[in-house]
């Protein structure tokens, strides 16, 4: 886990902090350069992002609400990665989860229907991801490839569900602008909102926080978490101990996909698209949640912070229009930040390794 096994001297820590600061400021400077080279005003970007994500009325509640599904997706990815499997199809798993939840929740009303729909959405996402696990252990298809291809299949599949009134399309016909959407959730089936200090955020926020601690606990303190990491790091050793790689792998994908599915169904019941399921529902939450997991280097608590930052970039980007800078700059900033945060640990690891090798060389 901890690749940097060095002496914890203050100097070392300062050096690490310096590296992070260096790379993050490099990322920010190059984003600013990009904006000004393309004729935008880079000074306007940061205030717009901060206003949109924090300062303007109701915005930090919105940011928290956006952070919840990001965090859930990231937690699922962290869980799967523990098994050394690379699931990158969260966007599709989220769509499947949301669509299944919508199919159930729009047909009934009341909190029980809502809870049931959320659970079904979660399991649907899990089973969708488990297909990739079955394909891996039965047909040796790399999980990276199969999960990615399934994103596009799930987009089309949920698009198909939206064409049939018997499945997901709003049967009443009073759809806004004749777009293809599902029926709207009745107010008794919606996820409750919490109101604090003039802001509101959905119940999904505390749920996802609890989930972060739960994942931390399961991975660090339970037999299941230990099994996953043993099987993931060395399948042969695991086999000697009687741990099945196949079962653990499919389980890890199932749980990871279920987190994405839950993210989708919670987004739907919290009203991400005005309580309707629409074709662009996932809105990149799956991809960005995956990035959260990658950047947080598979630490659930770090994922909480990164999810908040990424959510801030999302909500802040809606305020960029007034500055005349395209929203896509946020994608650029985000991926540069990702690279910046990945760089220092890799550099330290390399340096350690070089040092170790040269010491071994000297002793010969």
């Amino acid at each position, binding site marked *: 886990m901890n690749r940097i096994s060095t002496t914890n001297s203050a100097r070392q820590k300062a050096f690490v902090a310096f590296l992070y600061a260096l790379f993050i400021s490099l990322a920010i400077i190059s984003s600013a350069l*990009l904006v000004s080279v*393309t*004729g935008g005003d880079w000074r306007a970007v940061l205030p717009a992002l901060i206003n949109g994500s924090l300062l303007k009325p109701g915005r930090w509640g919105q940011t928290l609400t956006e952070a919840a599904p990001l965090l859930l997706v990231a937690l699922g990815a962290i869980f799967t990665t523990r098994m050394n499997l*690379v699931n*990158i199809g969260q966007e599709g798993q989220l769509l499947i989860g949301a669509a299944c939840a919508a199919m159930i929740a729009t047909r009934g009303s009341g909190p029980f229907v809502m809870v049931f729909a959320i659970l079904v959405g979660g399991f649907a996402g899990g089973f969708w991801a488990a297909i990739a696990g079955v*394909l891996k252990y*039965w*047909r*040796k*298809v*790399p999980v*990276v*490839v*199969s999960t*990615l*291809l*399934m994103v*596009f*299949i799930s*987009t*089309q*599949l949920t*698009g*198909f569900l939206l*064409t049939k009134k018997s499945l997901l399309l709003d049967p009443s016909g009073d759809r806004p602008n004749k777009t293809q959407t599902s029926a709207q959730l009745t107010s008794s089936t919606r996820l409750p909102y919490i109101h604090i200090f003039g802001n509101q955020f959905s119940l999904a926020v505390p749920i996802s926080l609890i989930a972060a601690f739960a994942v931390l606990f399961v991975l660090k303190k339970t037999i299941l978490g230990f099994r996953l990491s043993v099987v993931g790091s060395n399948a042969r050793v695991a086999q000697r101990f009687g741990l099945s790689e196949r079962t653990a792998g499919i389980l890890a994908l199932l749980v990871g996909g279920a987190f994405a599915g839950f993210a989708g169904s919670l987004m739907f019941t919290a009203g991400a698209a005005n309580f309707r399921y629409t074709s662009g529902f996932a809105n990149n939450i799956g*991809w960005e949640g*995956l*990035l959260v997991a*990658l950047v947080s280097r598979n630490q659930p608590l770090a994922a909480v912070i990164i999810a908040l930052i990424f959510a801030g970039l999302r909500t802040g980007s809606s305020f960029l229009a007034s500055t005349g800078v*395209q929203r*896509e*700059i*946020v*994608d*650029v900033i*985000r*991926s*540069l930040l*990702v*690279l910046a945060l*990945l*760089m220092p640990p*890799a*550099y330290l*690891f*390399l340096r350690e*390794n070089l040092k*170790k*090798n040269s010491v*071994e060389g000297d002793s010969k």
Partner: protein
Amino acid sequence: MASLAASGLTPILNVLSSATMYQSMIRFAVVLAFAAVGELVAERAGTLNISAEAMLIGGAFTGAVVADRTGHIAFGLICGMIAGLVVASVQANLSHRLTIDQFVVGLTLNIFVLGLALFLDARFRPVTDVASKWRVPGLAKIPIFGEAIFGQPWPMYLIVPVVVVSWFVLFRTRWGLEVRAVGENPQSADVTGIHVNLRRRQTVYFVGLTSGLGGAVLVLAQIPINGFEAGHVGLKGIIAISAVIFGGWTLRGTIFGCLIFGYFFALQQALPSIGYTINSQLSGALPYLAALAVTSIFAAHTRQPRALAQPFVRGLT
């Protein structure tokens, strides 16, 4: 009974004998092949390079912008290759010098390059035209296939030297032998004095060159674009990876895989134009479903490079 069989077979025969169908099949297959042939070289060295997608996007956008501004298609192709090489140098140095997980780097690059292309598109808005066609005299007149194989815009024929060069360097040079050794057993290769990570970086540069060229060919010889959109590349880099897996990490198989996936892309596009309608969601999912199905059928029968997707650090086993 006979008429029933005939009416059922007619659509199939029409599709099979449609010249348009084969033309679009070759078009898709060629773009896939640019990425897949390079990807094959990288995978034989042990990199499952998912940033092939980013390289295609980079090549397509840069190629389109340069060709639009300078008016020279050849210049666009060269700059597309350079863009692919730039993406590749990030991937190569981060994953085979700094040992950051190659999927993490690749995924980030895919998002980054797409975001950058869409961001810059608002300013540059490249408009491209399809390059002039080269008809091989006589051969282009062959019914059904002739126009598809011998009557394409000239940049598409660049796939021939790319394939030949890839085959030669990978299977007929010392460099290629070392690349394959690095992909099978990096520890042993290291002991024999091969610089493992250098070879791996070089193969990533190679896939950058071919994929960048492929992206540029896509916008300069196939789709005339008016502003770059995400759908232009639309995951062809990932399908190319599927083609390599389908081909069992052989050059012959990879090219065959590109043709098969090209056929499904062509089906999706050509069916309405021949006059058949199928469910639009099904046809949209068809290439990806086909890639998944075909990979599932063939992946288990082939042997992948033993060190595929495993980073090499001296001293770790």
